[in-house]
């Protein structure tokens, strides 16, 4: 709609303080009504244009050339003097006319109680956990050994009128999630170590902008291309290095296909409870291993959080952003995030223990190595060694409270892991922060796709016990 098409087009009006004096309107006016200014505006410190509307034909070209929203504008009735309600005129400044949104709660829909267990691999169990948690939007980029999860989503989601997108990269993947999660929906991806490295910028943005999402990372051997064998090579990355800035996310470490389902479901609840991404951290073995998976008694139909940028009237005033230009503002923002991390640390520590009640030798392991460690505990018990397994289910926050209770009776701590000390470092850091006394820490470590086996764990313990 051209202003010249309007016979009643009004003359221009200018509030000088909002004019930056760029002169586009000077150039645009065919009647030379507008001149570059000469006087500095006392409010803006800039030199606004001057208007002499003697020859103005109200063509409107000047205000169509003005780049400022409150710069040159039609002098129509909106700006004419009229009596207005003082309450409205002097009331609080209004940022947006949009309403303030409220949370729409999720709904739990019961499932039949007599469902046969599924016999599926870990990645499938995780994908089905996501579906049961109400995730209908999947974004991902194929990478071994995580891809079967994505393939199942590609097969199943169309039948549920959901969305599967194979993104052009992991970088695009995490940004699709940023958009979809920012709209308030439950979204996820499957990836493996090098893919997670690529996503980290976006993960930092999600944390900074408080966008929930679930990232299932099936760890493989690194660094670099490494191999596709099972490993716990990204524990440091997900616990200490989720992109730039002051970042943390809850890290859930399943040990079998059942937990792949259960913890993926839990991950969605945690992601939305804290408005933060959640990492489900598996190893290549766990992704591939087929096992028995019982289904829960309900599925989730997600609601919509009040903060979502959903693209409707109710959520119009919302903003998803991680920018804070002012140093004090950004410090305050980081302190808020830190307070949130502290709440996670206080409330979300999870762990499992096996025969720890009287354990003098405490094995500590997560993911698939915890299965081997459990077998080792059984064999050690059979040989009269009072061994137990402490299994962190959250690697961050580290379940220090539960572990601390077991330490007084323990003579020995042995960390069993498929990395060169990444889990042990988390343990040592947690012990240091907690300031609790602890017994000597030994370890059984493998890397590169080799997993610790029960016999070598038993032998390592017996060696230490023999040296006592």
């Amino acid at each position: 709609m051209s202003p010249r098409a309007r016979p009643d087009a009004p003359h221009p009006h200018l509030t000088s303080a909002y004019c930056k004096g760029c002169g586009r309107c000077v150039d645009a006016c065919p009647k030379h009504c507008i001149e570059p200014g000469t006087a500095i505006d006392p409010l803006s410190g800039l030199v606004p244009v001057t208007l002499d509307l003697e020859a103005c034909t109200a063509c409107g070209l000047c205000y169509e050339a003005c780049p400022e929203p409150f710069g040159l504008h039609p002098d129509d009735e909106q700006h004419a003097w009229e009596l207005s309600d003082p309450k409205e005129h002097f009331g609080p400044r209004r940022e947006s006319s949009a309403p303030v949104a409220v949370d729409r709660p999720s709904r739990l829909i019961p499932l039949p109680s007599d469902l046969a267990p599924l016999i599926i691999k870990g990645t499938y169990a995780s994908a089905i956990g996501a579906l049961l948690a109400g995730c209908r939007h999947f974004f991902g980029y194929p990478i071994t050994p995580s891809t079967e999860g994505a393939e199942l989503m590609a097969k199943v989601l169309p039948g549920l009128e959901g969305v599967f997108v194979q993104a052009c990269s992991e970088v695009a993947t995490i940004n699709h999630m940023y958009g979809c999660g920012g709209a308030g929906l439950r979204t996820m991806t499957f990836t493996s170590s090098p893919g997670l490295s690529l996503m980290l910028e976006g993960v930092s943005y999600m944390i900074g902008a408080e966008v929930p999402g679930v990232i299932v990372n099936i760890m493989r051997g690194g660094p670099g291309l490494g191999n596709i064998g099972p490993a716990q090579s990204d524990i440091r990355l997900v616990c200490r290095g989720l992109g730039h800035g002051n970042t943390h996310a809850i890290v859930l470490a399943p040990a079998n296909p059942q937990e792949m389902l259960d913890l993926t479901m839990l991950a969605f609840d945690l992601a939305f409870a804290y408005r933060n991404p959640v990492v489900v951290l598996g190893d290549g073995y766990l992704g591939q291993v087929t096992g028995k998976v019982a289904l829960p008694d309900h599925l989730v139909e997600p609601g919509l959080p009040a903060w979502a940028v959903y693209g409707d009237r109710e959520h119009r005033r919302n903003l998803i952003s991680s920018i804070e230009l002012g140093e004090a503002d950004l410090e305050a923002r980081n302190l808020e995030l830190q307070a949130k991390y502290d709440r996670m640390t206080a409330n979300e520590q999870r762990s499992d223990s096996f025969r720890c009640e009287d354990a003098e030798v405490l094995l500590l392991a997560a993911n698939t190595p915890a299965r081997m460690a459990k077998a080792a505990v059984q064999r050690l018990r059979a040989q009269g060694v009072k061994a137990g397994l402490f299994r962190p289910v959250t690697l961050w926050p580290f379940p220090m409270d539960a572990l601390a209770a077991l330490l007084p009776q323990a003579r020995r701590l042995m960390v069993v892991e498929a990395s060169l000390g990444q889990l042990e470092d988390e343990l040592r850091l947690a012990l240091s922060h907690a300031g609790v006394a602890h017994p000597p820490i030994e370890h059984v470590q493998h890397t590169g796709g080799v997993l610790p086996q029960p016999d070598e764990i038993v032998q390592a313990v017996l060696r230490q016990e023999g040296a006592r």
Partner: protein
Amino acid sequence: MTVFYENFERHAHGEGLKAHSTHYCPGCGHGLAHRYLGEAIEALGIQDRTVAISPVGCAVFMYYYFDVGNSQAAHGRAPAVALGHKLANPESIVISYQGDGDLASIGLAEIMHAAQMGLPLSVIFINNATYAMTGGQMAPTTLIGQKTATTPEGRTTFAGQPLKVAELMAQLDGPIYVERVALYDNKQRVKARKAIEKALRLQVEHKGFSFVEVLSECPVQLKLDPVEAQAWVKANMAPVFTLGVKKDTSADATPREWHRPSFDPELLMGQIGASPDHPERHAAGFPVHLDADDVSLKLAGAGGDGAQTVAALLTEAGIREGFDATHIPSYGPESRGGTSYADVHIAREEVLSPASPDPHVLLAFNALSLRKFGPSVRPGGVILYDSTVAEAPPAVAEGVRVLGVPFARLAHDLGAAVVKNVVALGALQAATGLFPPATLRTALARHLAKKPELLPLNEQAFAAGVEAVARLMAR
């Protein structure tokens, strides 16, 4: 204008003049593009359902101004974020707004793939031939000869040539509307306003992907006054980045239909294969003659031998019989024809380590697998191998029973080489008594539920394996 906030509270907390002034420098083209966007949003009546994606670059603070849903994206990723929003709510009108460094350099992959998906999105691309926010460095659209902070002697072809993005977009199948416009005079501004409105209208009509490239002035980095900058764009940019419609197939575009995601439990159960039926059990108890608590098996061959299928059937059988079971595959790097090994455990209570480094039972489909794993079978265990292709293993542990069964030949005799793994399954059942035959037949029938016509052949293959072992044992 109501599409802009009454007060820019997000701009330095809306203090002083900042409540009503943009952060843009005098004469910057962004303000005009914002203005035309605002007019289009108002004209189309879509303010409530608009989501604007702010990029990285000078327009990073676009969300200061538009009273719409706002999302701020990482550098180059606005189209990816926009897609996330659009797919979350197809009724929303999503605007991805980017500058030249953001879209044409670091974000080239995202814009190309978003364009090719062709979903209804409106992309506004501001091309001012420079990285303005970071201080006037070379952009992918900087002209040859143009001096910037990183091309102090002027851009040469060594730094690459100016990327003509509108033409690039027009070559793609995805977009339905691509136009390049400018802001340097009244005529171009009218066209720019119309193009931006059209890009939004096509999305309102659910038609497809629209792309508007706007040649824009950055007087500060050009070191020109704003009116001179207009003349510079006209004289220098417009000849290289020619104006006009580059592609418009919007008249032929049919509106896209969208569906709401389903949370119907019946539908989900069907999709994931969950059912309430519990198949009947056939085993009297755990196969304690093999191990008191945990039987481990290794199935080894080449890709295509069917080791993984046998493993899956055994795992399923174990779980249906009420035990715990696991199956872990391991493949060579080749997708077919390489090694294909499977470790299976059947445990009375819980499988601990799912690996089978010293299995009770080895099923070997070739000589290599037999040699590799034969010696690892634990004392008293069982080795079954395909005697069509392999000789007996050199040395095995004490008390290991070694049975050569011609899986491949028996399958060949049945007229279907592919069922050699089912022959092997039958042989394994007969040789180990791991489960009653009915257990494995049930698993086989479930496995072939969608191809029932293949069941008789598979039943024959299973029986052939059972009989072959019976003959060996009778000797």
